[in-house]
């Protein structure tokens, strides 16, 4: 047994490295921590709740996973007031009405055949079942994910924006991977989808939901990782500039700002610097382009006196 253990452990490590290198090929650079989370969610069949500041690649992670596994990505964006009809399924009312209109003659025939009221109701009852069948069911993201033949990657984005009720309603789906539709019954998929939930922590997620998920926190990347991300996303950037730029942004994150610059903003900034054909960070240039990194006027004001200092440090 011990031998098995070590070998499975070895393969666990290999698998994690495999995930990491596959992500890298698609341009999603991550550390072992993140890759381990993906590996575990896959092998345990559990959803992952991803938390972290905005713009660190929470949504990207789900996209990269879908790409890597060659499975369709089904995305559900949460917002206040999101309900079952928009997230799970909906009856095609229009189609139902249309069909009853078109089939009016047919219905009349059937009803006229029966002589008593009771038998005509019985006859009509049969149609009830026809109109509430899967033909008239409009699947929304959650049902689509469960029904998909070869599995899928389901991304429930910004779960913290939805209401408490919606969170409670997710519980059945996340733990059993099944959906109950009163008119039809329980629908259960063949393959468990891989589920990502992301949250920006605008409110505390309920304990019941947390208990059913693995929890992954993605912080801002360290300088080494951020450099790797930049060189993968903006390959044409000058090596010297890349180091300066990353150091500068890292320094900026240490200031007391309302919204810290995220990875996606660093990438945007790197791209625009490349477009401007910059080789070295200069105070004036930084001041002019700072609005790409910082989105609040107060933040720009706060960082302004520090810019010369930060540039100096980033060149070391």
């Amino acid at each position, binding site marked *: 047994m011990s031998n098995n253990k070590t070998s499975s452990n070895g393969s666990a490590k290999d698998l994690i490295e495999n995930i990491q290198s596959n992500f890298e090929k698609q341009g999603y650079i991550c550390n072992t921590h993140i890759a381990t989370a993906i590996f575990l969610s896959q092998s*345990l069949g*559990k959803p992952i709740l991803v938390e972290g500041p905005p713009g660190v690649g929470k949504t990207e992670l789900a996209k990269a996973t879908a790409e890597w596994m060659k499975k369709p990505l089904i995305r559900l964006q949460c917002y206040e007031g999101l309900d079952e009809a928009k997230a799970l399924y909906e009856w095609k009312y229009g189609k139902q*009405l249309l069909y009853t209109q078109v089939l009016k003659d047919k219905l009349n025939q059937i009803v006229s055949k029966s002589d008593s009221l009771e038998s005509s109701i019985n006859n009509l009852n049969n149609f009830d079942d026809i109109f509430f069948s899967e033909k008239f069911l409009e699947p929304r993201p959650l049902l689509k994910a469960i029904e998909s033949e070869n599995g899928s990657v389901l991304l429930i984005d910004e779960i913290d924006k939805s209401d408490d009720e919606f969170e409670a309603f997710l519980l059945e789906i996340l733990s059993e991977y099944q959906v109950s539709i009163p008119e039809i019954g329980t629908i259960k998929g063949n393959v468990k989808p891989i589920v990502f939930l992301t949250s920006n922590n605008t409110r505390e997620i309920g304990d019941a939901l947390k*208990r059913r998920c693995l*929890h992954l926190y993605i912080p801002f990347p360290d300088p080494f990782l951020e450099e790797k991300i930049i060189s993968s996303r903006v390959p044409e950037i000058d090596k010297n500039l890349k180091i300066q730029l990353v150091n500068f942004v890292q320094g900026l994150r240490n200031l007391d700002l309302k919204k810290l610059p995220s990875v996606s903003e660093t990438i945007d900034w790197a791209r625009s610097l490349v477009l401007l054909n910059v080789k070295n960070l200069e105070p004036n240039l930084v001041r002019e382009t700072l609005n790409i990194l910082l989105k609040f006027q107060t933040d720009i004001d706060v960082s302004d006196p520090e810019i010369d200092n930060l540039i100096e440090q980033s060149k070391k």
Partner: protein
Amino acid sequence: MVDFLRDFIHILRSSDLRVSTSESIDAMNVVSEVGLDDKSLLKDSLSFSLAKTLREKEIFNKCFDNFFEENYMNLKGEKLSKENHEEDIEFDELNNIENTEKNLEELYKSSDKTSLMTVMALAARDANLQDIKLFTQVGMFTRKIFDEMGLEKLNNDIFQAAREGDGKREGELKNIRENLRLEIRDYVENQVKLRTTNAGKQLREDALSQMRLTQADKSDYQIMSGIIKKMARRLISVHSRRKRKSQRGVLDIRSTIRANQEYDGILFETVWKKTKVDRPKIVALCDVSGSVANVSRFFLMFLHSLTEILPNVRTFAFSNKAGEVTDLFENKDIEVAAAETLLLNGGGSTDYGQAFVDLEGFLENNIDRKTTVIILGDARSNYGDPRCDVLKTIQEKSKRILFLNPEPKSVWGTGDSEMLRFVPYCSKSKVCSSLFDLERVVDDMLRSSI
């Protein structure tokens, strides 16, 4: 493996991190998936299933490091011995037990630290070390574990050596006994450190939240502001939920018709108007002179920890004159602000009359039917004019006045206390002397403001 995980989860729980049963099952699955060999991989993996907020991750990391510094050797030892067991478990186990009974001496001499640790851990389990609560129990548990490991045999050997007059052997054995005892004691002390740091804190926190704030000692301030933050978090989670419930208004006919156009105008879906909930406006006036200063300090901290559900709070502090302190709390660290408030506005003899006049001056037209005025103080005005007429105008303009008094009701109105003259103008007057009282008062206030 199960044992180690059980122990670890026990320690997490005692460090104020909630782990549910289903989470521990997950953790078990995780461990069987990744194995025990790679410590950093194990740490990463366990943190996904056991720690689910940033705060919890911090606790988890600390506990993991402590626990494994201590137990990793031990764990490996357990694994090794398990591998040995494989061929004939029963036989091996029997053998093992006999071995420990007989050869405590040999075990020590063989300088095989791993197996010694294993034996010690097994004995510790039999002695129920996981139930240890207080550091005063260290001696008792050391003795219990030593007994389990076969102290009796060692003592007999020493006794026999003494009877035979073999002084050298006697000395040697005594030496072994002493060293073993020290080692076990170290082990137990470590376990106490792991398991009881939080239990003691819990006890202290409970006591502090019940204690009269006027008796609070400076050294406890740090813990108390921690308690306040906890209480505030609790209130926020309770009250933000209820508000959402009560936000639904009447049927919005226009939107309902629009929404149902696609169903041929048959009203399948209903759309509701949202009612706007008036955020309560709160004005707090706190006495910060000597005797009441402590209560005011914590009350102010409490109010300003609730900005999420109480965005409109203005706070004033007074002793002989009132001054606004809202900005202090909004711009500075809450503890620094509390200290500065006392410095700026404390001192001087209390004058309630002047404070009311000042408050009215500050507020002028900023007071309306949505405003709740909270006054906190002992109502001892040093025989000055209490200016009940000003209090009356404030009452007429505002929604209500709450008066919180840290003194027990029996002494209201004695000596220079004007409390009984204030009571008629207040919609509620309450005794409020401990953190526990404070929480209840704020909770009440939030309940009735919605």
